[in-house]
């Protein structure tokens, strides 16, 4: 971190809102339909067609804005953003210019691994706009025409613009991860980057310390990043590129027009794209076909009360109520509300939050990953797993035996008790264990001598032998008994 510059990053995120129909018409927003089967005169811009606002799109946008701690103005309106592109049949996009539905919010981010201090990322504004269509160009066909599919035209998007508050690619990734999680908890979007439900553009430059003071490099907008990992890599790459370019050319902010660069996954570099038109070139003007929308104080309050427990609050609660670390709380919360509910039921059921957290993170999450299933489809209900953990806690069965039992519960769908009976696992009673240990100690004078010399680790050999004789023994208890017996002069 001794680099002679500060990294300045701001992010623009477009989120497709989870509505059944488009923003201004009744066409379906379902992904993956055959091209040009979900369009109508409104969304393909036929003369005389009139848009009508989708109530749910507006409500989802408002809900998100409130969760992002934004100010909600009492009055908002629509504007036309004019530009020509083949995937924009009307020749303008309906968006919001000077009176967006929300502004001046923030999203707190933190890193459980401590790579950066917890901080608030400012939100400049979150506004609604409609999506454009999709152009497809077959590279192999050379100079052939581009094919245009207008199914996506008019799909509601929420554009969330952050302040340039992020100081590293890791912070940018953390902001995106937290934002996506929030959107998931709110249920406003599926946030599927592969299907384009969440798109990220980044603005980045460097403030370089020089003997003559701080110098800012030209701001670059980076596009075409298809995962949060790609965002992080693209920004890391851009930091190096801008610093090297500044060393070579000395170019400062204002010396050259703002540049747009695209991330190229194959070469892991950014490449120049068409330069960005000036904002005024979009010739925004009020959309005459749509009337303004007003929002009341009561409405905002109602939305605030309906938000439910959001990720940040949930993390604190899990730490406080179940005694788990910030890191563990983060892992659990990041898996989504359903997994957290499973965890809470398990922790309540077995009375040990840490043990429950370990088992969820190791065994449950691994199974979900391997079987590609959601927690709702997990074969062992939290109450059943809780009974198993009860037995593990009480020392009735060992952790490793417990794992085998869970694996069998998952395969067979049986309860912990049934599986234990089927597998012939029996609790080894303490006096039998005492006898076993005494037998082993008498047969291993070497181990006894080592332990007496203070090498307690040597007792491990006895534990191994005990497990061979009876796989059901509890190794911790064997260790305890052996050390006690050796200490007593056997």
């Amino acid at each position, binding site marked *: 971190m001794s680099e002679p510059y500060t990294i300045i990053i701001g992010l623009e995120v477009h989120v497709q809102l989870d509505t059944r129909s488009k923003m201004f018409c009744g066409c379906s927003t379902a992904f993956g339909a055959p091209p040009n*089967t979900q369009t109508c005169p409104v969304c393909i811009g036929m003369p005389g067609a009139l848009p009508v606002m989708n109530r749910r799109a507006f409500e989802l946008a408002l809900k998100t804005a409130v969760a992002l701690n934004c100010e909600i103005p009492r009055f908002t309106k629509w504007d036309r953003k004019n530009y*020509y592109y083949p995937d924009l049949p009307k020749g303008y996009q309906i968006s919001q210019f000077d009176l967006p539905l929300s502004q001046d919010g923030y999203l707190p981010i933190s890193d459980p691994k401590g790579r950066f201090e917890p901080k608030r990322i400012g939100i400049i504004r979150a506004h609604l706009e409609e999506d454009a269509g999709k*152009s497809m160009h077959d590279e192999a066909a050379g100079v052939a025409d581009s094919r245009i*599919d207008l199914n996506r035209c008019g799909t509601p998007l929420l554009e969330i613009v952050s302040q340039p508050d992020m100081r590293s690619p890791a912070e940018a990734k953390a902001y995106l991860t937290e934002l996506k999680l929030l959107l998931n908890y709110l249920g406003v979007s599926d946030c599927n980057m592969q299907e384009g439900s969440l798109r990220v553009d980044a603005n980045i430059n460097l403030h370089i310390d020089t003997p003559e003071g701080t110098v800012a490099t030209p701001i670059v907008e980076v596009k075409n990043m298809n995962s949060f990992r790609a965002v992080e890599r693209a920004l890391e790459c851009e930091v190096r590129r801008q610093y090297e370019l500044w060393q070579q050319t000395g170019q400062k902010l204002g010396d050259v027009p703002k540049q747009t660069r695209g991330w190229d996954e194959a070469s892991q570099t950014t490449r120049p794209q068409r330069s960005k038109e000036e904002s005024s070139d979009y010739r925004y003007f009020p959309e005459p076909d749509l009337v303004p929308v007003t929002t009341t104080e009561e409405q905002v309050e109602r939305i605030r009360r309906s938000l439910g427990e959001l990720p940040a609050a949930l993390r604190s609660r899990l730490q406080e109520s179940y005694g788990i670390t910030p890191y563990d709380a983060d892992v659990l919360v990041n898996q989504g509300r359903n997994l957290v509910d499973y965890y809470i039921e398990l922790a309540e059921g077995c009375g040990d939050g840490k043990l429950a957290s370990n088992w969820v993170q190791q065994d449950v999450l691994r199974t979900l990953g391997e079987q590609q299933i959601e927690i709702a489809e997990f074969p062992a209900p939290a109450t059943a797993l809780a009974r198993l953990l009860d037995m593990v806690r009480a020392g009735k069965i060992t952790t490793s035996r417990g794992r085998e039992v869970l694996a069998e519960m998952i395969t067979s769908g049986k309860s912990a008790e049934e599986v234990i009976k089927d597998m012939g696992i029996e609790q080894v009673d303490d006096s039998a264990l005492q006898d076993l240990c005494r037998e082993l100690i008498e047969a291993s004078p070497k181990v006894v001598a080592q332990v007496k010399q203070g090498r307690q680790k040597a007792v491990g050999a006895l534990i191994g032998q005990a497990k061979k004789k009876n796989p059901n023994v509890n190794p911790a208890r064997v260790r305890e008994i052996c050390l006690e017996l050796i200490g007593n002069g056997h």
Partner: protein
Amino acid sequence: MAISREQIEKVSLLGRLLLSEEELDKMTGQLGRILGYVDLLAEVDTEQVEPMAHALDVSDVFRDDEVRPSLDREQALASAPNRDDECYLVPAVLGEL
């Protein structure tokens, strides 16, 4: 407010209008006169008047989030100057430099 010939050139480019030299001159004059006429409005004192967002005194018009039938694809593509079975065809746009 007069409008310059450069502004007309810029606006015609943004509007994808290819204007001849004569047309540019003609537009500069015509648009200048229109803007001059609109400038008359500047004489009114609007200090206490809130900017108008819409000509109608109506707000909060919504529809429910319900899917309605879309156009049949053949209908949608019917007027396209160029098309294939599924899509509109347009000259390739070079997005990258």
